[in-house]
């Protein structure tokens, strides 16, 4: 599910909406009553000959470039330019942890047409250009996130000072929202840090820590963060940053600090090579090819970014600015951008605990089973300072699990995101053991033992015998109904499902399952733990397969049928990835494990009957019997050889497929039909989950499908897909498949309702 991880970047995005309409209205009232009234978002103070401009959005935890803020900023800049006593300016945020987190998304979403957005972009371009050409040097003093529009503002300044801090990150995450840096970013970045670096930043949208930014030439000077002095560390650090920035401003005015940096030999060589149009063209086409390979052309934003950079570099700045603003306008109106922004909002919503604050904080967590999942859960828990007991039944199993946790943390040390000391002190909160000692102190027990109801019942009874009555029992099962597990419990209100996804440290989703007996406080506690572990959380009702597994099962059943109809696994993969899934269906089956898939198919087949049919379940069983359990066993649909990235189709699979061969019906076997057969079953099941009340709302449905199962992010999730694609068109396709395959393709009644009435939408 590697591809889904890319989307994980979204989570680091901190662009936040400004809420309430009426704060805006009240502000307007203010400005009417008195134009001299103090500004609310931006203010400045003159320190000697330096103007210190302080940004602070009073309505939000983060600063965003809203219309209001831009207006005040423009006014202030005009005053500074007009004031002869001022020779330079420092731009700083009063908020700890945030310089400017980007443009106001709602401002962009509120626009109705391409022209409107283009206009917004052009205004931004003009303002930043004025700052860039300012006769009085402007210094950006950066502490905290400096992203999107914030970064574009910072790079328009003459000089940048940033704090050395994990929270101080610079980046252009627009691409993750299906947009591009629309206020001069595509023009300034390549000139500042070179084409390869700029493409890397703008196309991946990744955050860059300040020390790296200094190496790249994105900031000029770093300032250390301070501990508590006579004020809190945060306050004092901002003050210190301001002091240094003011000194820099004076230094630049006195010509003591040169603005043009001495270029290194490497840079000179790079510049020389880049001066050849041939080389540049080579870069454009390489990057373009790479983007096409990775996105299958489903995401327009990266291609537009390349286009804008190219226009600016080859045809001059004016052409560049024009291309940037026009493409920005176009992108903002695309369904892909809407889908990605929708996911962003959904993700923010799923990072909140809608069940309130639990009565008791989970301080000690016990995990049963040190397998892949158990150890993964342990890793994300100790990482956030939760005392964790990892229990297994065998010493070998425990050793493997502890090694996994160690490796996970050690990899972070190797990447230098934590020090070896932090690794060691983090690991000190992990206790590995084979017995139940210390369980009386556990506030929550998560079991990750083998998926067998008898074993689950056994550990549940054992746990309840040794834990306190307040202790919560959470089951990490992917398909067994929680109420069946809770049947063995003496305190079913304390039983909840917590379905993690593998690999736990990489996959962001956590699906929490509640039964009708689960108490609200238990749910709140489970959500709180998940949030602490850094997860995006959906809370769903109980039932076979809950939400995620239930949606995936029919799609995999269909995939098996497609294989039986003679489509080779590679072709199946390319069809699914071509639709936007980050991982192909055959590869996904290998990743999940053929044995797990067979197990789930059987369980859900029993529960839902023929509707979950499709491929022959015996095929999977035969594969398991032959030892083709997927990646973990080295053989599945593909052959896996350690050290080899390239994988070949498992030749023995063909023999098995030969045994189970089915004849395809040409009426529903075109490439596109195969894609829609796979997707429509997924989507139909998702809508059915909403209809049956398993899902609380479509937002969680979309988030669960995208972050847990890799549903194409460009489509925004099954519900947004129905909205965009049209329920009627989907139903029409399904009816055609229904004729051939029967009830597996019967649209559910909610979907039919939406098909009948086009005004009905899942997302407003």
């Amino acid at each position, binding site marked *: 599910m590697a591809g889904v991880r890319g989307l994980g970047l979204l989570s680091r995005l901190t662009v936040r909406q400004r809420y309430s309409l009426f704060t805006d209205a009240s502000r307007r009232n203010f400005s009417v009553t008195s134009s001299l009234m103090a500004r609310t978002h931006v203010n400045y103070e003159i320190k000697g000959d330096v103007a210190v401009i302080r940004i602070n959005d009073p309505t939000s935890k983060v600063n965003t470039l809203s219309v209001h803020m831009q207006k005040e900023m423009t006014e202030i800049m005009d005053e500074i330019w007009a004031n002869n006593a001022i020779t330079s300016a420092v731009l700083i945020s009063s908020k700890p942890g945030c310089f400017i987190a980007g443009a106001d998304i709602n401002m962009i979403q509120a626009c109705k047409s391409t022209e409107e957005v283009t206009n917004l972009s052009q205004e931004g371009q003009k303002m930043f250009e004025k700052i860039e050409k300012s006769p009085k040097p402007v210094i950006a003093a950066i502490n905290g996130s400096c992203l999107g529009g914030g970064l574009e503002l910072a790079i328009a300044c003459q000089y940048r000072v940033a704090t050395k801090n994990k929270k101080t990150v610079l980046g252009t995450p627009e691409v993750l929202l299906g947009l591009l840096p629309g206020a001069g970013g595509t023009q300034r970045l390549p000139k500042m840090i070179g084409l390869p670096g700029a493409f890397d930043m703008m196309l991946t949208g990744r955050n860059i820590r300040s020390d790296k930014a200094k190496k790249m030439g994105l900031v000029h*000077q770093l*300032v*250390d*963060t*301070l*501990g*508590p*002095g*006579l*004020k*809190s*560390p945060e306050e*004092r650090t901002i003050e*210190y940053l301001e002091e*240094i920035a003011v*000194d820099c401003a004076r230094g630049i005015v006195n010509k003591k600090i040169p603005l043009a940096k001495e270029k290194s030999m490497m840079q000179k060589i790079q510049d020389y090579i880049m001066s050849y149009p041939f080389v540049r063209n080579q870069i454009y086409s390489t990057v373009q090819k790479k983007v096409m390979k990775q996105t299958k052309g489903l995401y327009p934003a990266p291609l537009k970014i390349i286009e804008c950079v190219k226009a600016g570099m080859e045809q001059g700045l004016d052409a560049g600015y024009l291309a940037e603003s026009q493409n920005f306008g176009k992108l903002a109106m695309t369904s892909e951008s809407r889908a990605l922004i929708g996911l962003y909002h959904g993700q923010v919503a799923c990072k909140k605990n809608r069940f309130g604050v639990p009565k008791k904080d989970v301080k000690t967590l016990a995990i049963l089973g040190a397998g892949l999942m158990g150890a993964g859960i342990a890793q994300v828990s100790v990482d956030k300072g939760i005392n964790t007991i990892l229990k297994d039944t065998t010493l070998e199993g425990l050793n493997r699990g502890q090694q996994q946790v160690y490796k996970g943390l050690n990899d972070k040390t190797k990447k230098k995101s934590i*020090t070896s*000391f*932090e690794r060691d*002190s983090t690991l000190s909160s992990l206790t590995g053991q084979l017995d139940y000692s210390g369980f009386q102190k556990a506030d929550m027990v998560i079991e990750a033992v083998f998926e067998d109801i008898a074993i689950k019942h056994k550990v549940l009874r054992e746990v309840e015998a040794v834990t306190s009555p307040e202790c919560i029992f959470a089951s990490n099962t992917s398909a067994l109904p929680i109420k069946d597990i809770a049947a063995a419990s003496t305190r079913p209100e304390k039983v909840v499902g917590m379905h993690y996804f593998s690999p736990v440290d990489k996959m962001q989703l956590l699906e929490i399952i509640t039964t009708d007996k689960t108490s609200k406080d238990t749910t709140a506690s489970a959500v709180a733990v998940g949030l602490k572990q850094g997860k995006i959380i959906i809370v769903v009702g109980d039932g076979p397969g809950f939400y995620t597994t239930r949606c995936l099962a029919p799609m995999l059943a269909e995939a098996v049928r497609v294989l039986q109809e003679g489509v080779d696994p590679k072709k199946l993969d390319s069809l699914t990835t071509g639709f936007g899934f980050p991982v192909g269906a055959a590869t996904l089956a290998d990743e999940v494990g053929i044995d797990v898939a067979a197990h789930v198919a059987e369980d859900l087949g029993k529960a839902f009957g023929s509707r979950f049919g499709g491929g022959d379940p015996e095929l999977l069983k035969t594969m398991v019997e032959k030892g083709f359990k997927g990646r973990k066993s080295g053989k599945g649909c593909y052959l896996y050889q350690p050290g080899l990235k390239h994988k070949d189709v498992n030749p023995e699979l063909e023999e098995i497929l030969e045994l189970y061969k089915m004849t395809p019906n040409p009426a529903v076997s075109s490439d596109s039909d195969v894609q829609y057969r796979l997707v429509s079953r997924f989507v139909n099941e998702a809508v059915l989950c909403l209809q049956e009340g398993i899902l609380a709302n479509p937002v969680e449905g979309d988030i669960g499908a995208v972050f847990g199962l890799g549903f194409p992010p460009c489509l925004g999730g099954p519900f947004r897909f129905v909205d965009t694609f049209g329920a009627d068109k989907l139903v029409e396709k399904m009816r055609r498949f229904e004729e051939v395959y029967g009830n597996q393709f019967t649209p559910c009644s909610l979907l039919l309702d939406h098909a009948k009435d086009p005004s009905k939408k899942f997302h407003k």
Partner: protein
Amino acid sequence: MNSLRTCPVNSSRALQFATWALSASAPLQAQAKSKKTLSKPGVRNVVLVEGVRTPFLQAGTTYADLMAHDLARGALQGLLNRTAFPKEAVDYIVYGTVIQEVKTSNVAREAALGAGFSDKTPAHTVTMACISSNQAMTTAVGLVASGQCDAVVAGGVEFMSDVPIRHSRKMRKMMLSLNRARTLGARLSLLGSLRLSHLVPELPAVSEFSTAEMMGHSADRLAAAFGISRLDQDEFALRSHVLAKKAQDEGLLTDIVDFKVPGKDIVSKDNGIRPSTMEQMSKLKPAFIKPHGTVTAANSSYLTDGASAVLIMSEEKALAMGYKPKAYLSDSFSDFLFHGKLTKMRCVSFSPTYAIPKVLERSGLTLADIDAFEFHEAFAGQVLANLTAMESDWFAQNCMGRKAKVGAPPMEKFNLWGGSLSLGHPFAATGCRLVTMVAHRLKKEGGQYGLVAACAAGGQGHAMLVEACPQ
């Protein structure tokens, strides 16, 4: 007055109290003390009989060709010579060191034997960064107070002219495997794995292991956190040098014992005391945080070679043997301030602020009772930050969980004979220098209570109360 003490051998303290009561003319005693003495009922009085040190020299100068235990021997021998103490009467030796010479890992034992102490006297080495000899003294005080020993020698040595530089881990591993390789073929194949990168040497860590931060870097951040300016730091450093020079010229640094360097001269003076001018100091560039830092070579302590030793005894035994003890070593406290989250925020150099109130509260004294302060000066910025913090209610309330500030020592009682910035700072030898110096100052200035405080890497600090013995 006798009701105050149950300890029988305390007669001298009674005398002492009487002297103080009488000598009201001395300005320092004008103030009434919160407590008449720190003597505790039922606990043996522990005294500092004598303290000596070798001259402290900048690393790489006259001591350059010696080894750590040579300097330690010098200090130990000097102590014996000065006190004429019978060697066999020493019950125990505790010695501190920070950067270890691998050949003499228990430097206490090597130096003691070399200095002619009895081979029946056990000796151990302690290490606790810059407060190693403070810890050695604390251990000695404990041994005497508990009645296990009557006379203990404590001290510390640091030798920065030579530090262990190791082969890289890869090289070491290869060399160790080579030892075990039996056949020529095995040896040759091991040698074949030798790469150029194996030859890169490993220097002793300049940064702290757990925080990966250099001491000077941390001090600079600490100074910035408290808004200590470059000017303040330079002025404080200059003060240290000027006062040290004055003390040196007036012959107050009597703890120094001459050291004969084989093949070279006899050294009898510290060589790092160099009062400069503010102009010259202001020209220096920041040493750690560039370009805007404030800690420079001139306002930091420098790498120093040196050793020190003190003789700590029970008062009873000291008097019986005819010694005139210098001071009571009353209460000593090593505080620990280390926090996973805080390490990067404020690590070294800061703990005196935490240790001082604890040691004062435990003894029932207030800051106003103290007549002489001896603080270790690692960096001017660090000392000033500590003083500022002690003066801050905000800091006391938000960072120390106290109701109000402790208050900072008045400068007219503070490090009047120079400090580590000027005299030098051989890491493990500084603690004994501080205690001996405060005892000498109390004697010279006629004060009663002295307070010693020092900080160390790892976020640890040490504070000790010293009470003058009757003259």
